């Protein structure tokens, strides 16, 4: 996928062939857009319900130019970053405890497993009852979305850490918290990363769901506004924004982090 992972290992022939998937991908999307535009123009459905890609692009441009989408995206981003960081802190601590303390794993661990199965937007009614329909309720749902994935990721990473790392570290004088920060967590990182990534995507989904209900400017709420205005083009344009933010987080944060870890450890695909 990236030039970096390709350089060391692949042959020149493989590099020459590398543009082909991109070509196929390009053709696929162009065809998809053409079919979409064709269907929109066919008159089968009214334009306000099924706009073509050009109309959606126009709506996207308007939204961006007016600053509405940008401010909405920033509001959503702020929430997810805060919520995610809270989850990261609690989840890491909880995962470490579950991974290292057997009694906790047998008791609390099973509860975490169960809660992981619950889509976090299911917490929203309770959050509203407890906290009111406000910023804190939204944040609560985001935290619940990421928390259990991160916890379970850290836990499995810690459990699968080869014991000889810990043994060597203790032998070299590592004690107490340093054993965790300098050895157990970094040793678990490759396994932890997938949990972090899953946590992010769950949190992002929960946030969008929660924002549908909460009337302040945000991406989720812009979807709802589009619906209220019978403006399918805006709804679709906001959907494009939501995908873009999700992909950007993946490409700018998680993929580089994963790649760096894999390269350091020598875990090539």
């Amino acid at each position, binding site marked *: 996928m990236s030039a970096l992972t390709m350089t060391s290992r692949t042959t020149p022939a493989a590099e020459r062939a590398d543009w082909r998937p991109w070509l196929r991908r390009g053709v696929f999307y162009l065809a998809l857009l053409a079919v979409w535009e064709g269907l929109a123009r066919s008159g089968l459905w009214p334009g306000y319900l099924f706009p073509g890609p050009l109309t959606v692009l126009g709506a996207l441009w308007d939204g961006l130019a007016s600053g509405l989408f940008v401010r909405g995206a920033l509001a959503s981003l702020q929430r997810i970053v805060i919520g995610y960081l809270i989850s990261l802190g609690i989840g890491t601590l909880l995962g470490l405890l579950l991974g290292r303390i057997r009694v906790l794993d047998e008791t609390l661990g099973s509860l975490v497993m169960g809660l992981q199965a619950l889509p976090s937007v299911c917490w929203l009614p309770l959050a509203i009852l407890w906290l009111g329909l406000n910023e804190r309720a939204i944040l609560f749902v985001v935290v619940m979305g990421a928390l259990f994935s991160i916890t379970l990721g850290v836990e499995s990473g810690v459990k699968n850490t080869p014991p000889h790392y810990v043994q060597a570290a203790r032998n070299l004088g590592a004690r107490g918290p340093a054993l965790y920060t300098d050895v157990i967590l970094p040793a678990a990182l490759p396994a932890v990363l997938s949990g972090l990534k899953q946590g992010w995507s769950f949190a992002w989904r929960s946030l969008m769901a929660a924002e549908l209900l909460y009337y302040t400017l945000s991406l989720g709420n812009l979807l709802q506004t589009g619906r209220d205005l019978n403006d399918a083009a805006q709804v679709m344009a906001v959907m494009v924004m939501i995908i873009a933010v999700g992909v950007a987080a993946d490409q700018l944060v998680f993929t580089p982090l994963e790649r760096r870890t894999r390269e350091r450890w*020598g875990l090539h695909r």
Partner: protein
Amino acid sequence: MSMLGALPWAVGRSKDRTQAGALNSASGLSLRLEDVSRVFSHHGQTVAALTSITLEVAAGEFVCLLGPSGCGKSTLLNLIAGLDTPTTGAIRVGGQPVEGPGTDRVLLFQEAALFPWLDVQRNVEFGLKQAGLPPQQRAAIARQWIERVNLTGFERHYVHQLSGGMRQRVAIARALAIDPAMLLMDEPFGALDALTRDRLHQELETLWAATRKTVIFVTHNVREAVALGDRVLVFSPRPGRIVGEFHIDLPRPRSLEDPGLVTRTAEVMAVLRAADADERAHGGRGR
């Protein structure tokens, strides 16, 4: 040969002299095992891994523990390291009873156990960081040890970029950087090819001569034991016990082509074979 000549290795590196002085301050400590045994119980069954080991190792001595796998050599190292406690008997290092692991005794394993998330430099710095040394000082000490194990230029390499022999060198540098009194080596070169192993034998001998650490070296390779040890102790399995002791007074540095070494290797081999035959004859029940 004069050990003193090799000792002040930091002479001429005026910049680092003070640190180097502190670094090389601790030479080996003596080791004393009195009637040490270790019995493991597993699902109600007891297995004696070691029985009645009595052993005295002088400060700065290089002792090889030789025996087939399953003879409790690694158990003995873990006991000395303080990672395990003997069922009976007492272990003293430098006159002090062993109570848990300590940085005066560092274990080295066959798999090197380097940290893959750290580069060579930071691996060697690890123990120094745990000891609370400031970054500049530990970087300087690590650089010196990396140089002494002939890995200068590889400071920024990660573990997967190193060969097996280089990994063992890093592990040795990492252990010596924290200036232990004793190295406990558990078949550290077992997975290396013969040429690399021979080179590492020479390097280890040189480092040992210069630092005067006490070395307990576990191996099942007779030639390795004779090439390295001041003394070779032959172990018999199930339960592990010492069945032979050889003082190897060949001159150092030793050459593998030395006919004396070949002769001593044959002698040790004979005892090992006899122990093995005895073990087979008694079906491992000869308690």
